[in-house]
């Protein structure tokens, strides 16, 4: 099963939860992959300290025009909705950074003057951290298109393994790209006005995508009861709480895993694995029936 860890806002402890959940799960004698899909700011490696076995350059397809074949008809410019190719004075001009790789220009080109070539948008690293399989994507600086890179990170997850997927913060397109085909989503939040406001957005997103989810409250006790009240009112399952503890913040600051630095939390995360499985199981049975 694939569990995505998401949160409406950043800094709620999404990476902490993902990394520790993945490690705790792998210590239950199961094959697990940790996949960092927060490709703009991938931080999982700071805590898991994996050994990287393979680094792959990821390219998004963009048009290349062969001017010997081009007859200047202008159809490529007409079909492109992103201004990534325009025909000026009978000559096509490309803006690869605006290209969404739809392939329209090359399809529409009758003299077959347009070839699609890969443009580097980032890298995917694969390796391992102990028994844990590790995959991470990293967007090139100055690059705006993250969804194609996210797709490649997901593709690098072994098919028959459990996976914990660290999603980017927010609720916009890259997040949807990460969570949409996961089996279960954990929404991480904190008991503050910002935390609740952003949790509501995240809940709206998973509901819209029709995904199974529950909420994990981090830094419980640091704010007030508004997240509890909201979950009760909306009948949302609050799956676990991680207390507000300066020791956690300090161990996080050093890049340590909670399951190692503060062993009492290993149990919390192992229980969390069980809780997720319990919630996931009934649906599997339902589907079979």
């Amino acid at each position: 099963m694939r569990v995505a860890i998401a949160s409406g806002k950043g800094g709620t402890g999404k990476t902490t939860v993902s990394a520790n959940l993945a490690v705790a799960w792998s210590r239950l004698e199961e094959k697990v992959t940790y996949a960092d899909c927060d490709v703009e700011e991938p931080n999982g490696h700071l805590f898991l300290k994996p050994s990287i076995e393979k680094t792959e350059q990821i390219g998004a397809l963009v048009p290349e025009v062969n001017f010997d074949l081009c007859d200047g008809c202008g159809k490529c410019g007409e079909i492109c909705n992103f201004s990534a190719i325009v025909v000026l004075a009978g000559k096509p001009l490309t803006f690869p950074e605006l290209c969404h790789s739809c392939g329209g220009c090359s399809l529409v080109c009758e003299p077959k003057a347009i070839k699609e070539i890969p443009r580097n948008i980032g890298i995917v690293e694969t390796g391992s951290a102990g028994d844990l399989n590790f995959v991470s994507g990293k967007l090139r600086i100055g690059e705006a298109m993250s969804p194609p890179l996210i797709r490649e990170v997901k593709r690098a997850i072994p098919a028959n393994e459990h996976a914990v997927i660290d999603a980017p913060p927010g609720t916009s397109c890259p997040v949807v790209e990460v969570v949409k085909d996961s089996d279960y989503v954990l929404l991480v939040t904190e008991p503050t006005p910002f935390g609740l406001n952003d949790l509501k957005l995240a809940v709206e997103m998973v509901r819209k995508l029709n995904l199974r989810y529950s909420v994990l409250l981090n830094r419980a006790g640091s704010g007030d009861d508004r997240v509890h009240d909201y979950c009760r009112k909306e009948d949302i399952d609050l799956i676990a709480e991680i207390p507000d503890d300066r020791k956690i913040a300090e161990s996080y600051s050093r890049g340590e895993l909670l399951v190692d630095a503060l062993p009492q939390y290993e149990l919390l995360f192992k229980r969390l694995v069980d809780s997720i499985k319990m919630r996931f199981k009934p649906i599997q049975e339902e589907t079979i029936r």
Partner: protein
Amino acid sequence: MKIIITATGTNLESEVDPRFGRAQYFLLVDTETEEILPIDNDQNLQAASGAGIQSAEAIVKNEAEVLLTGHCGPKAFRALTSAGVKIVHGVEGSVKTAIDKFKKGEYQFASSADVASHW
């Protein structure tokens, strides 16, 4: 010669619009007769992205040889120069003043974009 000036209105007294891609109007001016044909840029003003490139397309379609504007980003600059359009940026004041200054040869054509890329 046909030139295009970005403007906030449609006549000689209008101010030069400092924006290129998202200018209110493009004024197609015949420098000999000072005849003005205003082109409403409403569509690009609202455009989500690629406004500069689409505006460049409009300039080229109208067969202008020179563009007078406030600022021009790198994508639009590349599009315009590749089609042989010369660009003057940093143009201010009224359209009339801009035309006069251009005719007196007081402007220099730009060799690169003057603002960073917009998304």
